[in-house]
């Protein structure tokens, strides 16, 4: 049989899914053991027990300095910034994208501006944000918004413009005005694409969040990683990185499930020709 035609069975697929992870873990364990054998105080590749101790300390013992459970405090701070940034961006993206996509007069006015803004690297204006909004929460949330909003706006605008013109004409022959068409025809149809656009931009949102925290913050996942980098504390950094990956994965999955449950018509078989 040709290679392209052989498909794994269910259990085989699961095994294949897990295989690379297992290999990575084995390689790590071997490498870590080898280094620790040579130098028991090596910090680069800590043993599994060090990870356990570090996480025990970060997650389940109050910090000696502040009395907080650091992992959870960091997570809460980071998630709050991220959700605020992404949520506000999604709202702006939806409103501006739909209005831009639907109304040629507005599009002619704002589209070039949005394109121009989207070409500015957000990290380049981070200093401006710190100057204008101070070092507090606002500047970090603003960084996320400036980073992902243009992408969301442009995607939603495109989605709005690619709705079949037949639908918009039909709605007009049903006696609808522009506003009614916007809220009853266009808006519900661009919500599922909004969710997938948000899923795609979550990666960038995390990037901007951690960059912002690394530079100016007093708590947060990104802040912590950059803080303890000074002590080469790989036993904390690595679990933190994995924890961030898990959080990102959970958010992505939640958005996917939300879209599937809230918009079954979007995920069913598309149009029978």
């Amino acid at each position: 049989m040709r290679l392209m035609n052989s498909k794994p069975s269910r259990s085989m697929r699961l095994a294949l899914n897990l295989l690379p992870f297992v290999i990575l873990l084995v390689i790590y364990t071997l490498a870590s053991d080898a280094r620790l054998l040579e130098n028991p105080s090596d910090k680069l590749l800590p043993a599994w027990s060090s990870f356990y101790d570090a996480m025990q300390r970060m997650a389940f013992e109050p910090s000696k300095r502040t009395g907080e459970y650091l992992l959870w405090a960091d997570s809460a701070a980071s998630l709050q910034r991220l959700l605020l940034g992404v949520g506000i961006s999604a709202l702006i993206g939806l409103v501006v994208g739909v209005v831009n996509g639907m109304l040629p007069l507005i599009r002619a006015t704002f589209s070039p501006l949005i394109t121009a803004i989207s070409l500015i690297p957000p990290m380049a204006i981070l200093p401006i944000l710190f100057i204008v909004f101070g070092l507090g929460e606002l500047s970090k949330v603003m960084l996320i918004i400036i980073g992902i909003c243009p992408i969301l706006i442009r995607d939603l605008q495109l989605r709005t413009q690619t709705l079949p013109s037949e639908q918009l004409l039909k709605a007009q022959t049903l006696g609808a005005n522009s506003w009614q068409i916007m809220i009853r025809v266009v808006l519900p149809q661009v919500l599922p694409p909004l969710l997938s656009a948000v899923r795609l931009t979550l990666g960038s949102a995390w990037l901007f969040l951690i960059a912002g925290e690394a530079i100016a913050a007093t708590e947060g996942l990104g802040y912590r990683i950059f803080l303890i980098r000074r002590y080469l504390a790989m036993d904390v950094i690595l679990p933190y990185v994995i924890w961030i990956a898990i959080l990102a994965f959970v958010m992505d999955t939640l958005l996917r499930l939300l879209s599937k449950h809230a918009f079954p018509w979007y995920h069913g078989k598309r149009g029978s020709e």
Partner: protein
Amino acid sequence: MADTIINIKQVWKEYGNQVVLEKLNLSVQTGEFVSIVGASGCGKTTLLNMLLGTESPSRGSILLDGEPMPTEPNATRGIVFQKYSAFPHLNALENVMLGGEFAASPFLGKVFFKQRKKLQEKALEMLVAVGLGDAATRFPNELSGGMQQRLAIAQALIKEPRILLLDEPFGALDPGIRKDMHQLIRELWKKRGLTVFMITHDLSEGFSLGSRVWVLDKPRIDPQQPERYGAQIVYDIALNTDQVIPKSLQSIINKTAQD
């Protein structure tokens, strides 16, 4: 005698140098069923768009009930396209209710409670009339091609438009389903006293459904400048019950087969 609903007077349609339609002089009585046939690219859709109001004539005028045609689509003229007429995010019943909701609720475009009940009943009646009574809660992507077109028709008729525009409504359907749809549209046309304009590239469909057939073609062609002359209505045939398709027509339509 029925009164004139559409009056097309000396209409030309040009895009820059290209003449698409020329010298159209037609008047249509209330209750006529006009089939528009012609080769592809000869301006059938342009003519329909002018009746819909998305395009306006370059010269001449189109009168609706003696008044100039509105320059936007509105509820006097319903339309059914070949596809994408139904809204994918609403189920069949909601699709049909939408017209009523737009009228009843200018701000939300959505009605509730008693008013909703009333619209639901009316919409369900309409769905039953087009044979979709059992599919009220299904979404358009769960309906077959023929059912989607039935839905699109129900959706248009709920506004009780006086004119119904059909843009190759059955072009994507299987022959058997097409027959059923013909019967449905003929029934609705007779029962509701609609004035129908239907574009089709199926000549026999045009003749069997319509009470009048317009054949669009270019009678003059300048080989050096093909865009110089536009298409005209070369035949305007009022149909009695039994009429054989004239042989000469077929050659005009055969150009359609090239698409």
